[in-house]
């Protein structure tokens, strides 16, 4: 019997998996009921996967801002334009680096833990137990984590951007001695709300959805063995990272 994995049609396997993933998403959303219990579950997951990712996001954001300023000042100095550093850092952060790096960090920190947790629940029959108790595990386990990821990634992106600007301030003004007034005025006048900031917010929402969907899907469909959960966790990081970068290009093409 020919299945997607052995089909002679090119990309039949990835296409079939994409189809199953989309069906899983539709099943999650179709059963959504905005109950107080669901709200509490989402809030708890926002804390577990969102708030607990804050430290790593803030540290990385700060150093990305520093290194970006260092490279920018080195390059701009050749043209005598090092006072434009805040403009370059701000635009590249809000448009690209903030949403993309936050999504990649989120995939590594929270996506893997979601996949491993759900995979382990499958391996220890907790998912079966829910089904036998007439509790839909997709609504109970997958949906709160998916929604929490979508809510968390834009918020984490905002924190990443804020700390990156802080890192830039520390390096540019504190270490390199650039003028603070010029730094802030260039940032204020050169970075636009709709073109730069809003585009980044949309991107972070989409990236949050992609990473969270992949994390819950691979966890839910993981083989109930140690190796199965390990493979699912690796797949989550690899596939969500690749998709974030692909979708970044697609969205940038549209927004530009």
């Amino acid at each position, binding site marked *: 019997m020919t299945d997607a994995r052995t089909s002679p049609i090119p990309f039949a396997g990835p296409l079939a998996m994409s189809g199953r993933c989309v069906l899983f998403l539709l099943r999650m959303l179709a059963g959504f009921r905005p109950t107080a219990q669901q709200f509490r579950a989402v809030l708890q997951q926002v804390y577990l996967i969102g708030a607990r990712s804050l430290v790593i996001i803030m540290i990385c954001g700060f150093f990305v801002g520093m290194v970006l300023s260092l490279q920018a000042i080195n390059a701009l100095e050749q043209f005598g334009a090092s006072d434009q550093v805040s403009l370059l850092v701000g635009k590249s952060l809000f448009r690209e680096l903030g949403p993309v790096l936050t999504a990649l960090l989120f995939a590594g920190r929270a996506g893997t833990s979601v996949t491993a947790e759900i995979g382990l629940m499958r391996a220890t029959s907790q998912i079966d137990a829910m089904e036998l*108790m*007439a509790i839909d595990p997709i609504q109970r386990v997958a949906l709160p984590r998916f929604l929490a990821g979508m809510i968390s990634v834009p918020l984490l992106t905002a924190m990443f951007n804020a700390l990156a600007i802080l890192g830039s301030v520390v390096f540019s003004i504190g270490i390199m001695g650039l003028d603070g007034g010029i730094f802030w005025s260039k940032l204020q006048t050169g970075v636009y709300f709709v073109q730069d900031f809003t585009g980044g917010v949309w991107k972070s929402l989409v990236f949050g959805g992609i990473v969270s969907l992949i994390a819950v899907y691979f966890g839910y469909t993981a083989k109930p063995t140690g190796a199965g959960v390990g493979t699912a966790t690796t797949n989550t990081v690899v596939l969500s990272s690749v998709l974030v970068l692909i979708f970044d290009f697609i969205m940038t093409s549209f927004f530009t």
Partner: protein
Amino acid sequence: MPKVSQQVSAGDSTTPVIRVRGLVFRRGRKTILDGIDLDIPRGRIVAFMGPSGAGKTTVLQLISGQLRPDEGWIEVNGQRISDMSDKELYRFRRNIGVLLQNGALFTDLTVFENIATPIREHTDLPEALIRRLVMIKLKSVGLGGTEELMPHELSGGMARRVALARAVVLDPALMLYDEPLTGLDPIAVSQVRTLMSETNEALGMTSLIVSHNINEMRKLADYVYIIAAKRIAGHGSPEDLSASNDPGVDQFINGKVEGPIPFHYQGTDTAWSLLG
């Protein structure tokens, strides 16, 4: 060759709560169960026994609707499980309790929250009443005072008892046990067995148990089915089976290697694989 299905009756005049007819189940090309008929009377404790891989757990999974039969049908309280939609299955499962082999407690919830989960999910009872119900069930399994513990803080026997309290918290009419005594020490085995018996009597349930433990099932079960080689090899009360002359039943009950129940996996001929 026409398939001969086996009509099996529990030998009781009461209305069967579960009826199974012509049940066939396959995994890929391998037939797991072939032509099984059952009648399980209400209020009894019925055990499914047999060698590993014979399909005992599969029978429970078919009855709970986790699996669908390839042929035949299953009725529980007159409702045909095999034809139910997912929504109907979920409604049906509110009236059954299942104790899985490892207990399957939710590892991120306390003992209290584990037991309260089915109540919160299926009723609108106030918190005070939920608390009382959970504490009653917890006390009934001898674990009062453990409500704030996490599952990883419990021993195997305690976890199994908490899982039992969770399974019966909504007073189900039908209880399914999958290897409830496996991996427990002798004291825990006696405790869980006693609880199963008392719970069945107190709640007027029907209980189906999958087990390997012949001695414990002699004490617990009213009726035993032995499943081997895809079919029901024998059935009767534990006493009847102990005295049975049937070679399959005798082989299983007395743990004999030689007999109609095969030792080798029914796959590719090993001799050919050895030749490369």
